């Protein structure tokens, strides 16, 4: 198992997280877009890069905001559709060797859909892959 260079890290995190989510859900990179949602979607937005104190030369901690959005206007239905699966996701991440989570918070996106914002961070090595 090797760590990913920073430019591949988002794809690797999505690859690791997808099996932890129900197969019917969509997983997409980038910031959330609400206009074309047809099924429950998890958006993975790359938000922060911090140094890694335990191995500072050549490694970093990359943080991602996962936006879990069920396209259901009724709040109770939205909560029933996603709440337990978000718990499954964070508990699965507990055992992961290079991805950790720090917070999962209920959030209302664009005043329309009730979902979750999950903060995860991954250990990455800073070496760009040659194009």
């Amino acid at each position, binding site marked *: *198992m*090797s*760590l990913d260079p920073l430019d591949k890290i988002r794809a690797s995190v999505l690859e690791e997280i997808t099996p932890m989510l129900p197969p019917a859900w969509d997983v997409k990179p980038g910031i959330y877009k609400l206009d074309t949602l047809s099924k429950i979607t998890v958006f993975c937005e790359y938000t922060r890069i911090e140094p*890694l104190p*335990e*191995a500072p030369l*050549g*490694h970093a901690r990359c943080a991602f905001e996962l936006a879990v959005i069920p396209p259901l206007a009724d709040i109770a239905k939205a909560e029933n559709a996603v709440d337990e699966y978000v718990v499954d996701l964070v508990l699965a991440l507990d*055992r*992961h*060797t*290079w991805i*950790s989570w720090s917070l999962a918070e209920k959030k209302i996106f664009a005043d329309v859909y009730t979902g979750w914002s999950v903060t995860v961070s991954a*250990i990455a*090595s800073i070496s760009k892959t040659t194009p």
Partner: protein
Amino acid sequence: MALVGLTPFQALVGFSVGSDEFTPALAEARFQPVAGTTSEFTDITGVKTRFTSESGYDLILNYAQDWDTAGSLAHYLLTHNGDEATVTLEVPGGSFTATVTCVSGDIGGTGTGVAQASVTLPVKTGPTWTADA
């Protein structure tokens, strides 16, 4: 001079005593070295030479107490206080096995905090590395 790559990992992967896995109970499982004895020799010109034996190890466990579950780590250590046990610590790439002497941990705790315990088990032999197949 060859550059050796590095793959850091997030510490707790798996911990078992004998055939029981106790990973969910643990906040920390760590084999900590115990320095060997050192003797110094200073020759007539004042140059110091230090001789040291190999380090030994202690197994440090920080875990949550659970007295309700029959086979919990808390009960295990209480029942086997003073007995030897074989422990396995998993890391990415393989596992470490060692023989330790069990020591019973804290019982009870403070106010509204989660009851936890901290023990240091002396390692009799090991840890021995076995790489994953």
